[in-house]
C-alpha cells in the first residue's frame, strides 16, 4: 500500500497530468490516421522528451504507445484500413459489422475490449511487481546476455517464411552498433578514418530513418484514396454490456496479451493470433468469425491492448526491450541516467509502479475521450496520404536535427529512410535491425562481463536461471528447425502433387530417352563427368 501511495505521489504533478492528457489524446489521434502509427510518432517525439523529467517523458511516450491501438481500431472498423499494423485483425470482424449497419456497436465493443485488456494487464503487473522485484536481482551479466540472445532469436523466428533475412537484418543491427570507438580497448571499428563515425551511429537516427522518413517516402510516392465514412448511429455504451456477456473470451485474450507481451520479440501479433484462434474454437458460432463476430472483435482488441503494459516488464526488470517501441523508450531512460534493470526494481520500485498507474489512468482517459469525441475524431482519416507524407517529413527534421544539430545525422537518417522504404516495398521487416542494435550492445557488454568470471565455457550456464534460459534457447531453436523441416516437406509434397508428369523411375528414364540416345546428349554427359572428375581431383 505504501508503495502505491508513493507512486501516486510521483504522479501528482501538473506536468505529469499534462503529459498523460497529451499522450492519450495524441496517441488516439495518431493511431486513427492510417499510415502514421505509434513508431513514427514516438521516433519524432523522442528527442523532444529528452529535456523533460524521466517520468514526464516516459508518460508521453507510453501514452502514445498505449492509446494508439484504441485509435487504430476506428479506421479498421469504419473504412476497413487498420490505423496501426496491430489492428489488422480488427478489420476481420469490425468492418463486416459496419457493412451491416452497426458501426457504433463495433466501435463501442472495440473500445470496451481495449479498455478491459489495458486495465487487466496493468492490474496484473501491479500485483506481479513484488514477485518481479524478487526475481530481477537473480539476473546477473550471464542471465541478461542469455535473455537478450533469446530476445533476438525470438524476433528472428517470429518472422515465419522470412527468418533468414530477418536474421541477416538483425546481424546488420549488431554490426551497426559495433561501429565507432570501442569503449574498453579504445580501438576504432569500421570508422574508415571518418570523424563522424567515431562516436558511432546513433540509435535514434536509425530509428527515425527506418520508421519516420521511410514512412514519409512511402506516403509521398503513394496515391490518395477516397474515403467514404459511414454515419454513426446507436449508443456508445452498449459495448460494455456486450463485453460483460463474454467474460471468458475477454479474460483469456487479456491473459494471452500479458504473457506474450512479457516475452521479448513476440508481442501483439502472436497474442492476437492465439486469442482469436482460442475464441473461434471455443465459440458456439465459429462460422461467424470473419463476418462480424463480436467474440472475434473482443479477442483481437483485448489481446493487443494488454501487450503495452506487459512489454514494459522485460524493459524495466532486465533492461531488455522486446520490440522497436520499447527499444526507443530505452534511450529515454539512458538519457536521464536511469538504468533499467534489476537495480531499478530494487531501488526505484515506486517509479515502476508509478509508470503502471500512469498507464491505468491513461486507459480511463482514453476511453472517456473516445466515448465523447469519436464523431469528430473519425474526420482525421480524411487527411490525404501524400499531405501526411509532407507533414511526417517536416516533423522528422525536428527529430533528427534536434539531437546534435548535425547535418550528417540527417544524411544518415535519409539513407536509412531509403533502406526502410526498400524494406517496406519488399515486405521485409525492419524491426530486427533496431533490436539487433539495442540487444547487440547489451550482449557485447554482458558477454564480456560474464566471461570474465567463468573459467570454462560451460560455467556460463551453471546458475539455475542461466541454465533455464539456455534450455529455452535450445528449445526455441529446435522447434524452429522442426517447423522449417516440416514446411520444406510440405512444400516438396505440394510440388510433387502439382506435377503433371509421372514421378516413377521408369517414366523418368523414358522422358530422358532422347538425351541418352543422341550423340549430343552423350557429349554433354561426357563433358559433365570430366568436369566432375576434375573437381573431385581438386580435393
Amino acid at each position, binding site marked *: 500500500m505504501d508503495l502505491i501511495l508513493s507512486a501516486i505521489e510521483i504522479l501528482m504533478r501538473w506536468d505529469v497530468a499534462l503529459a498523460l492528457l497529451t499522450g492519450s489524446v495524441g496517441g488516439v489521434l495518431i493511431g486513427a490516421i492510417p499510415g502514421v502509427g505509434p513508431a513514427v510518432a514516438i521516433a519524432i517525439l523522442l528527442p523532444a522528451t529528452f529535456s523533460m523529467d524521466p517520468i514526464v517523458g516516459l508518460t508521453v511516450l507510453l501514452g502514445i504507445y498505449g492509446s494508439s491501438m484504441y485509435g487504430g481500431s476506428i479506421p479498421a472498423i469504419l473504412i476497413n484500413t487498420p490505423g496501426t499494423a496491430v489492428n489488422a485483425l480488427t478489420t476481420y470482424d469490425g468492418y463486416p459489422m459496419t457493412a451491416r449497419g452497426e458501426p457504433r456497436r463495433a466501435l463501442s465493443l472495440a473500445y470496451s475490449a481495449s479498455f478491459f485488456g489495458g486495465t487487466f494487464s496493468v492490474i496484473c503487473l501491479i500485483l506481479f511487481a513484488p514477485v518481479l522485484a524478487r526475481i530481477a536481482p537473480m539476473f546477473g551479466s550471464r542471465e541478461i546476455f542469455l535473455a537478450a540472445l533469446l530476445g533476438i532469436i525470438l524476433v528472428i523466428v517470429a518472422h515465419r517464411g522470412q527468418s533468414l533475412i530477418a536474421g541477416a537484418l538483425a546481424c546488420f543491427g549488431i554490426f551497426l552498433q559495433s561501429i565507432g570507438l570501442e569503449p574498453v580497448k579504445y580501438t576504432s571499428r569500421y570508422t574508415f578514418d571518418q570523424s563522424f563515425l567515431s562516436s558511432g551511429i546513433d540509435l535514434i537516427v536509425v530509428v527515425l530513418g527506418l520508421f519516420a522518413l521511410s514512412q514519409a517516402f512511402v506516403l509521398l510516392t503513394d496515391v490518395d484514396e477516397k474515403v467514404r465514412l459511414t454515419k454513426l448511429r446507436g449508443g456508445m455504451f452498449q459495448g460494455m454490456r456486450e463485453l460483460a456477456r463474454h467474460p471468458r473470451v475477454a479474460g483469456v485474450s487479456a491473459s494471452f496479451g500479458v504473457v506474450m507481451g512479457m516475452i521479448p520479440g513476440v508481442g501483439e501479433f502472436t497474442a492476437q493470433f492465439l486469442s482469436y484462434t482460442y475464441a473461434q474454437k471455443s465459440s458456439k458460432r465459429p462460422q461467424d468469425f470473419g463476418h462480424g463476430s463480436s467474440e472475434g472483435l473482443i479477442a483481437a482488441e483485448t489481446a493487443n491492448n494488454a501487450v503495452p503494459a506487459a512489454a514494459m516488464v522485460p524493459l524495466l526488470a532486465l533492461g531488455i526491450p522486446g520490440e522497436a517501441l520499447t527499444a526507443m523508450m530505452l534511450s529515454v531512460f539512458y538519457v536521464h541516467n536511469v538504468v533499467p534493470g534489476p537495480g531499478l526494481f530494487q531501488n526505484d520500485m515506486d517509479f515502476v509502479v508509478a509508470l503502471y498507474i500512469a498507464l491505468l489512468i491513461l486507459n480511463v482517459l482514453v476511453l472517456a475521450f473516445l466515448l465523447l469525441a469519436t464523431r469528430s475524431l473519425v474526420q482525421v482519416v480524411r487527411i490525404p496520404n501524400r499531405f501526411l507524407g509532407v507533414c511526417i517529413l517536416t*516533423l522528422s527534421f525536428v527529430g533528427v536535427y534536434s539531437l546534435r544539430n548535425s547535418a550528417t545525422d540527417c544524411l544518415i537518417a535519409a539513407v536509412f529512410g531509403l533502406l526502410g522504404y526498400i524494406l517496406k516495398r519488399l515486405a521485409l521487416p525492419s524491426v530486427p535491425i533496431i533490436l539487433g542494435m539495442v540487444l547487440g550492445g547489451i550482449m557485447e557488454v554482458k558477454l564480456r562481463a560474464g566471461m570474465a568470471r567463468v573459467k570454462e565455457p560451460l560455467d556460463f550456464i551453471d546458475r539455475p536461471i542461466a541454465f533455464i534460459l539456455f534450455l529455452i534457447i535450445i528449445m526455441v531453436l529446435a522447434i524452429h528447425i522442426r517447423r522449417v523441416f516440416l514446411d520444406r516437406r510440405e512444400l516438396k509434397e505440394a510440388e510433387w502433387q502439382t506435377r503433371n508428369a509421372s514421378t516413377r523411375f521408369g517414366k523418368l528414364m523414358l522422358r530422358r530417352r532422347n538425351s541418352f540416345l543422341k550423340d549430343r546428349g552423350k557429349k554433354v554427359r561426357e563433358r559433365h563427368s570430366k568436369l566432375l572428375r576434375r573437381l573431385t581431383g581438386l580435393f
Partner: protein
Amino acid sequence: MPTERERRFVGPRRGQIIFGVAFVAASLLLLSQIGSQTRWVDKTEFFAQPRFWPAVGLGGMVLLGGLHLYRLPWWRATRYDWWEARKWVSVLEFGLWFMVYVFLVPVIGYLPVTLAFVPALAWRMGYRSGFMIAISLVFAVAVVFLFKTLLGVKIPGGMLYEYLPGGLRGFFILYL
C-alpha cells in the same frame, strides 16, 4: 503460372533479387575490410576482442543473407525488378528535399524555411488549392510553435536573424 515455391514466398517478387545481391555484396565487401578496420588485441580474451562483435554481425549478414539469396525462388532479374529499382531511386528526390531543408534552416532560420518548405512540397505533391496551401502554412507555424517555442528543442537560430534589430533578434533566435 507461378510454382508452388513462388506462391509460398512471403512478399512481392519484384526487386527481391536485386536487394538480396546488393545486401550480400555489401556484407562481403565490409567483411573483407575486417582486418584493416578492426584490431586484434594481444593478451585479451576471445570474446572481449574488439573484432569479435563486428565479425559476428558481418558473418551473420553474409551467411544468412547468402542463404536467403540461395533460397529465393528466382535467380534472374526481370524488367519488373529493374522497374522496382527505379522506383527506389525516385525516392531520392524527397531525400534531396529533406537535405535542402536541413541545410537551409541554420542559414535562413527555422520559421521562414518551414513556412516555405511545407507549402512548396505540398505544391509539388499536387495540393495547389488555396485551402491546402493555407493548411500547409498553418501546419508549418504550428510545428515551429510547438517544438521550438513551447518544447524548446535544440534548433539553432538562422544566420539571417543576426541582421534583425536588437530585441527582435534575441526573440527570433530563441523562439522561432
